[in-house]
């Protein structure tokens, strides 16, 4: 593969071609209005154009309209907002008169929120080691959304640089109000911020907490202790002990400083805890201290405000991240372990792929023409590594269609609900 390097300055030149030839606007549009033509002009889409020009409250009559706008403006970023009660006029009306009525539940997990526990990279950087935080987060959230809330149509998207997004698109999720959304968001949030010592606190082992713990345990030793080396230096050890009440921390410090590596130190921590517990020196509300620590280091850190409200904007899938040039692609949570953010194609790479493909087929077509067969026109994205991501997206759309059909059948009484 001729991996041509992406250069941020070339983005304005690449975007028009990307939108013309590769961007799956038909599929995206289909999703955004759930096959209902009356939704299209009520769904808020916003564009950020080159030079940070921000256009909010755009809406489109239909798929062609949407495609045309993309081809005309080639936005650097497309954000998706709510479906509103009334039609949105595309030019500058006031937001106060608009009532959002439907919207996917969204989650945004950003690597920077892990900066106080990850040690391999900081800020915008991301490597296979810290990507594990995303793996854990995705597995835990996906599990809870499906099992606890019964949601089925969930789209996971790589944000293009260092985070992941999640869209829950079931009808019953879309119609939840702000209060219900915030209940879900808070249910899924276990880390508290601010001036508190214990950032995670359990009084009982809730079934969802137990399930999350299983996921964390799969990764804890290798990814958190070894790779992140969270106890490897005195500084990190101090940070760790800072999560424990002053009354106990010296006891743990003694045991933990006797050994060197993170794994050994963690073991010393667990052993000390168990001994104290046997001696009945651990008050009842500290009995989950070991679990609390694991959660502090590995439990998903959500930007809760994104989830809480009906009309928060979130970047659409298949946008290009301007800094990295990478496409914001969907992925399947089942395979997130094998998802390598480094392998996600950049826009320049994709355009190269088309060219290579075309060059190759031209040669073949010549052959074919000599054998007098007609050539078939192939969609451009199918010529590139974008294909597999579009396929994932289309699968998600099919799932939605199936759910909608089932809901209709239940409504019409042709299917018994059980």
């Amino acid at each position, binding site marked *: 593969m001729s991996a041509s390097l992406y250069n941020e300055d070339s983005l304005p030149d690449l975007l028009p071609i990307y939108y013309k030839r590769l961007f799956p606007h038909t599929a995206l549009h289909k999703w955004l209005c759930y096959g209902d033509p009356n939704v299209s002009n009520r769904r808020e889409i916003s564009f950020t154009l080159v030079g940070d020009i921000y256009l909010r409250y755009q809406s489109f009559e239909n798929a062609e309209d949407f495609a045309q706008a993309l081809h005309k403006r080639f936005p650097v970023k497309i954000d998706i907002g709510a479906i509103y009660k009334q039609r949105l006029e595309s030019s500058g009306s006031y937001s106060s008169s608009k009532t959002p009525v439907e919207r996917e539940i969204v989650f945004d997990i950003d690597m920077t929120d892990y900066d106080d526990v990850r040690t391999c990279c900081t800020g915008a950087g991301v490597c296979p080691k810290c990507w594990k935080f995303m793996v854990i987060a995705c597995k835990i959230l996906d599990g809870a959304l499906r*099992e*606890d*809330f*019964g*949601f089925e149509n969930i789209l996971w998207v790589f944000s293009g640089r260092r985070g992941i997004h999640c869209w829950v698109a079931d009808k*019953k999720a879309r119609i*939840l109000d702000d*209060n*219900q959304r*915030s*209940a*879900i968001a*808070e*249910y899924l949030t276990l880390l508290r*911020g*601010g*001036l*508190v*010592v214990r950032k995670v606190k359990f*009084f*009982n*082992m*809730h*079934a*969802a*907490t*137990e399930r999350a713990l299983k996921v964390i345990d799969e990764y804890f030793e290798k990814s958190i202790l070894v790779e992140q080396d969270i106890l490897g230096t005195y500084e990190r050890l101090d940070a760790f002990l800072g999560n424990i*009440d*002053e009354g106990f921390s010296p006891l743990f410090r003694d045991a933990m400083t006797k050994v060197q590596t993170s794994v050994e130190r963690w073991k010393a921590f667990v052993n000390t805890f168990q001994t104290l517990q046997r001696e009945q020196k651990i008050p009842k509300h500290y009995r989950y201290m070991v679990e609390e620590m694991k959660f502090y280091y590995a439990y998903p850190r959500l930007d809760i405000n994104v989830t809480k409200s009906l009309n928060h904007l979130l970047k659409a899938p298949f946008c290009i991240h301007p800094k990295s040039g990478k496409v914001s692609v969907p992925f399947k949570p089942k395979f997130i372990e094998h998802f390598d953010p480094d392998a996600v194609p950049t826009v320049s790479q994709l355009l190269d792929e088309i060219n290579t493909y075309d060059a190759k087929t031209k040669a073949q077509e010549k052959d074919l023409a000599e054998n007098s067969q007609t050539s078939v026109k192939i969609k451009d994205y199918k010529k590139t590594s974008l294909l597999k991501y579009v396929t994932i997206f289309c699968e998600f759309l099919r799932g939605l269609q199936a759910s909608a059909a089932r809901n209709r059948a239940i409504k019409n009484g042709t299917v018994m609900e059980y």
Partner: protein
Amino acid sequence: MDFTSYRRTVRKAIAEEPLSELYPHDVSMYRESPKSEISILEFEQIALDRLKLLRIIEQAAPKGNRLYSDQWKTCIKDDLAKAGLKKYVRLMGGTSGTSDLDYQARKADYLSHFILRLAYCRSEQLRRWFLSRELEWFWIRFTAQSREGVKNFLRLYKFSYTPISEEEKVSLRHELEASTAGLILFEETEFFKVPFTEVCSLVRGRKVFLKAGFAYIPSSELVVCIQSKFRAELSEELTWYSHRIHLFDDERIGPLLSNFHNLHTGQNYRVRENHESVDPADLDAYAKKHFPLCMKHMHEVLRSEHHHKHQGRLTYGLFLKAIGLLYEDALKFWRDEFTKKMDLNQFEKGYVYNIKHMYGLVGKRASYSPYSCVKIITSSVGPGEHHGCPFKHWDVNLVKQKVIECGVSVDGANEIKQLVSDGHYQLACGKYFEYTHGKALGNGINHPNQYFEESMNIEKGASGNKK
């Protein structure tokens, strides 16, 4: 009551239905507007009684009783008895009795609820206040019900909640036991399966087991669902009334209802109207000695960071105004601090209006009153903000450390810590006062300005004695 007559095209003179059918239960969803006729005098009387009831409920928590605790309930019951509102005490009993007194109590409850809808539908703020109080009142009566009483209620109001089968319960035993907060006896608890959207408050804190979008709640939490239904219905009704209020107001009831909320304000702390002004040069010393922890903290933050966000400026600014900081002094005070971090121009542009506004010199020219403890305690404090109540918004260990720094003994600090852990923030504040002043307060703290005044009084008393 006459005020619904416009809904009916023909007004028939119907004989009143028997009370047992009109008011069958102590707990009501208030779904049908009453059709009885009452005298204007009675109308006023029962309306005022209900206002007193709601005020008493409102004040129970600031007196140091954790919301919905037994102590809180007892306090309300005692206060109602003291105020002579026996009928409401009766409704708290959970008996749904059938004596004439019971029916009269329910009738008064029913009618007065509807009268207050008319008084409280008038603004967003009033609606919110009324809704919260009514929800609490609903909760008090519902939770007093026996199993039988709850069953009757569910039947009367056509709620279709039924407990899950023994089989399902047993098969989910591990999950239910692990996930249900405060569960004591699994065997004796009935569980109800309800859409999670009906019990958001339980979902939020992982207090119940969830599966496929349903929450499994113990019968003791059924009140949460019913209460949220009640909230939804009442809130919709209030909006409905607010759009039609002009149809209800007439010269007899209009004047009474339009200013209703201020008729009976109970024993709330009132900021004194005119007192001596304070010298801005004294503020540092005052902060040390006479400010409650919340304001002391704000003062220290302002001095060290030279900034406060909007809520902080408002909370602290109004407090200062009420202790007697004059407008000119306030302006200078804020300016001197803020301009350590920004230029004068920026300050003039961004903040002066704000301060004028606080002093009622611009805008609506309203005279804003300083925030009470309840308001401060219930406000939310975001990152970079400092306006909350330390007892409520800080980690308890931090509170402990802080009060020790302020001169409280370790034992005292532990006592305060315990109160905080039990959710008695204002009592904790009172204890803090006690330990830093060597004198207990009769009634606890319900306003930062009250704290200040009490503290000043002690000092004045002390210097007065010396003379």
